[in-house]
């Protein structure tokens, strides 16, 4: 294949990937009257940040953004801690029934969220916890996927490292925290990226369990915004643009690692 043709195709592909984002930005800067113009008005009068102002007036946007961020970070941190600890037990602490228990963990991996939606909703309602941060966060705290991933990583840590620590009189908590955890940092980072993305994008469960806008996460806030501003696409796109920015910034910093993690997950 000719080199020029190859570049042409790659660039065309990149434009297809970028255009929807660019169009969202352009639409968000379009004044109210010109949004639905047909043919599109590319140089409308009064272009500016009007839609963003309306967005901020229509919903507690900063609060919703903060919710998404802190829920994502908290969920990621909790999953890292709980998964790494369980992974250590499954890799390093023999106990009766360990294999069976690990099989139970793995089995939960196969159960999709929608199987759990109804009883989880009832459970939260019974505990009077619907429409709370706790209800959004709680089902994400334990991750069988994380336990599986980190157990693999811990198993690859040579036992000589632990043994040296044992001879120094260290208990399991110290071995875990100061010997094993530092050695599995790449796996922890990979898992953290997956966990944060899952929480950041999560829609179905927050949709079911949350009612009040002040607890909303971004996907929920945006969907609700779309419900109210059905035809006011400049406001909806303003919301979309602003909600992409934080994850985009994170992505720019972690880009290489994110892509390496995904690539690794396909190579067994």
């Amino acid at each position, binding site marked *: 294949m000719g080199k020029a043709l*190859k570049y042409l195709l*790659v660039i065309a*592909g990149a434009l297809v990937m970028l255009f*929807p*984002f660019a*169009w*969202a930005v352009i639409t968000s800067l379009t004044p109210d009257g010109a949004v639905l113009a*047909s*043919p*599109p008005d590319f140089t409308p009068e009064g272009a500016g940040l009007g839609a963003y102002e309306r967005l901020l007036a229509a919903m507690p946007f900063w609060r919703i953004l903060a919710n998404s961020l802190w829920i994502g970070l908290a969920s990621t941190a909790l999953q890292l801690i*709980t*998964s790494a*600890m*369980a992974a250590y*037990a499954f890799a390093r*602490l*023999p106990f009766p029934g*360990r*294999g069976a*228990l*690990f099989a139970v963990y793995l089995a*939960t991996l*196969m*159960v*999709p*969220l*929608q*199987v*759990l*939606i*109804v*009883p989880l909703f*009832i*459970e939260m309602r019974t505990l009077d916890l619907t429409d709370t941060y706790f209800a959004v966060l*709680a*089902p994400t*705290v*334990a991750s*069988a996927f994380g336990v599986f991933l980190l157990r693999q990583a811990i198993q690859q840590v040579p036992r000589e490292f632990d*043994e040296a620590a*044992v001879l120094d009189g260290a208990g*399991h908590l110290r071995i875990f925290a100061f010997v094993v955890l530092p050695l599995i940092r790449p796996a922890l980072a990979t898992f953290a990226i997956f966990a944060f*993305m899952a929480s950041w994008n999560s*829609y*179905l469960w927050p949709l079911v369990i949350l009612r009040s806008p002040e607890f909303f996460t*971004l*996907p929920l806030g*945006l*969907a609700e915004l779309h419900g109210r501003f059905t035809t006011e696409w400049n406001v*909806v796109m303003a919301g*979309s643009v602003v909600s992409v920015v934080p*994850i985009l910034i994170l*992505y720019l910093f972690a*880009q290489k690692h994110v*892509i390496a993690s*995904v*690539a690794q997950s*396909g*190579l*067994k």
Partner: protein
Amino acid sequence: MSVTTRAASPVERATAPPRRTAGQRWRYAGTVAIFLLPSLVPLTLFTLVPMAGSLWVSLHEWDLLQPMRWVGLANYADLLGEEETRAAFGHTLYFIAGYLPLVYAGGLGLAMLLNRAMKGRNLFRAVYFLPVITSWVVVALMWKWLLNPASGIVNWALGLLGVEGPGWWTDPDWAMPSIILASAWKDLGFVMIILLAGLQAIPGEYHEAARVDGASPWQRFRSITLPLLSPSTFFVVVISLINGFQVFDQVHVMTGGGPGGATQVAVEQVYKLTFEYGRAGAASALSWLLFAVVLVVTLVQVRGQRRWVTYG
């Protein structure tokens, strides 16, 4: 999943229960508990108990408000007889049939373009991956706007080419293609990255040797690239099918199952049964039926992989 039985290492011997006094055994059990409980407690409360609960609910008639009424397997029997269930699974299969070939062919094409060293490769890779990190709701909204029948940019561009664009998500015939298009666009980068990693694991000498023997690019693609890429392809197909059967976010935002039920997929049906039709029991039953389908499909693939997946 294998639990290896091997000689205990010094660490395990030093901490293994049998040689210890009762007090030390309790201390060891306490240590195990400290490591396990932080995940076991939430896993039990928010996954295992709801799993059991879901099976229990699926055997009842229930609108979430009145007391539950035991109906045995009637929900399952009802669902299997209902036109809506067949339609929901049909729409889900329609989605998969459109989405999987599109995302695989597109992902493979991009991966092959980026496989050789070229200027700006990392930049292109990062750009293609951008939709993957964007949340589904944002992607669905962006595409709903791009594909807006009256004022969307896509139909305007089609108009410039002299083509009258369809009604996209407002047209029962075009609603599912719209969702498929948006979904393939979002996941293309993910598939590309997986396949690119697979391509780069293929030793260059294989292609060299085949070229020396006079194999055409197409022959090399058929006899070297595709077979050696099969583990990555397998991974992509398994993941895409699991996700495809569970498609919901983009449907819920773009069409809500409409117009006229044309995109009413299985999970959307679970959602509606629960929160709109007051049939939580049937919804749970449907979710288990869907789970059974996904499980069977996945197992069939895992068993069938020997026939076409080559592990180097």
